[in-house]
């Protein structure tokens, strides 16, 4: 057991959450981060889906990495990811229909999510299954919590709700408060994402080279 949670492995898991975050540092997967974060619920579901798919595709590719011919590795990775995405998409349609309608094509587009391909190429092709699993979970969660932050800000300011529950009191509306319609547009998601990156970099100024 102790080997499973060795220092290196914990590093593999923790780095993508902060100093090697796929969105904040590598700036990958921005397109879906802009598209699905108008509300909190789809942002959470999207984050979890990506986490699950990244983890398991990492494991599968890592298991068969020695048998994959180098020249067609991208195609094989795509097949694995596509199969997983199809499964997730079907599960969502069956058990969370409303959210899957809101997410629309973006579940299918996880196939082309740069984070997935990046992790498969950069990590799973060279490491064992357990490390790859941790790496996938870490990157997925690193992606997910940024989505949750952006989604929460946008839903709170754009619609006055969180997860569908009204947060802004009625009295504020009576006093003239109006929801910010620009928050529901992708343009604002980009600006909020920029602010998150800004905060993150000013906190981690020393670690950066």
């Amino acid at each position, binding site marked *: 057991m102790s080997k499973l949670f060795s220092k290196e492995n914990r590093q593999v898991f923790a780095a993508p959450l902060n100093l090697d975050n796929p969105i904040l540092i590598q700036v990958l997967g921005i397109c879906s981060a802009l598209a699905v974060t108008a509300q909190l619920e789809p942002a959470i579901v999207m984050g979890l889906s990506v986490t699950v798919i990244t983890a398991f595709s990492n494991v599968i590719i890592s298991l068969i990495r020695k048998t994959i011919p180098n020249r067609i590795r991208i195609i094989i990775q795509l097949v694995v990811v596509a199969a997983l995405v199809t499964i997730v998409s079907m599960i969502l349609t069956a058990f969370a229909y409303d959210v899957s309608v809101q997410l629309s094509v973006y579940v299918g587009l996880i196939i082309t999510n740069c984070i997935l391909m990046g992790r498969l190429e950069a990590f799973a092709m060279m490491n064992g299954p357990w490390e790859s699993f941790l790496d996938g979970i870490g990157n997925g969660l690193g992606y997910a919590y940024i989505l949750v932050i952006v989604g929460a800000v946008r839903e709170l300011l754009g619609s006055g709700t969180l997860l569908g529950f009204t947060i802004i009191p009625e009295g504020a509306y009576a006093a*003239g*408060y*109006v929801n*910010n*319609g*620009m*928050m529901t*547009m992708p*343009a604002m998601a980009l*600006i909020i994402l920029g602010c998150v990156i800004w905060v993150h970099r000013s906190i981690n100024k020393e670690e950066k080279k």
Partner: protein
Amino acid sequence: MIKNFLDRIKPNFEEGGKLHAFRSVFEGFESFLVVSNATARTGVSIHDAIDSKRIMSIVVVALLPALLFGMYNIGYQNYAAAGAEGTLWEMFLYGFLVMLPKIIVSYVVGLGIEFIVAQWKKEEIQEGYLVTGLLVPMIVPVGCPLWMLAVAVAFSVIFAKEIYGGTGMNIFNPALVARAFLFFAYPTSMSGDNVWLSKDQVLGLGNQLPDATTMATPLGTLGGGHATDVPFADMVTGLIPGSIGETSVIAIAIGALILLWTRVASWKTMLSVFVGGALVGWLFNAFGPATAVAQTPWYEHLVLGGFCFGAVFMATDPVTSARTEGGKYIYGFLIGALAITIRMLNPGYPEGMMLAILFMNMFAPLIDYCFVQRNISRRAKRAQNS
């Protein structure tokens, strides 16, 4: 006298002085009130001994006619909608009292952020907000609430200006960014028929109007598909509903003369905006669809809405417009052409000037690049031939 006073209190603000925390504030006021000893070395005023505070002051003076008329017009519209009689001074004073809080909010929020940033980065106060702070209240409808104005000003100063490096570095015109932010974030408070009228009494002046009283701008009526019955003379004098500073062509023309005479604004940009607008307007008149907005004569389009205001005060902003002399023609022409095209073809945006200028702000560096490259290659060729 002012100078003596400033010199006397100056040591307090030097490094280690007791009021050191307000150093940037002091410097800002000092150079605003008296001519600074140091001329600017960077930014917009690089080609001139005059520093950009002087330029800004001239623009503010040029804005005054439009501002004063806008105040009068607020009162005029209020009295007209109530059907009441009012003297010129009553109307003006009423408009002044409605307008004053907006200007104060704009300056307090905008300059506050500028002061904080300057202090934080240990830089000189940047003076660009003097003009922006006056422009923002002038390009919003009178019904825009103060807190929205404050949010929009904060947004535009931080995201359109400070993150690009402050005055002189911004790509987009901050005043227009503030307006665009309001327009997209709070569409019900920025457009429609319900925002062009000040409905409350202020200090006993003006008339209390019922909430249901509405007033459409001529462009709003046209965008809705109806012909407007506002006479051309009113469009020129500006006694029509609209954003506060934009309605009067005459007041704006006075401002334009001041800007051109002092050479603060480029006549090339200004002229080509009108040429572009007139040309496209004429084309739509001749060949366009038979909608009300496309059949409005081109000369009416030029005096309606924010076209003049944008052409004179926004398009000519030396920071965000094209800087090459030839580029100014293209830059201005495309602003005018785009503004009218947006008006004609998109009923969702009855006013295209804001979007057209922001769009061309984005392309100004590209236009400059093309002109500079063309000059370089032409000279290279000339050098080869000789």
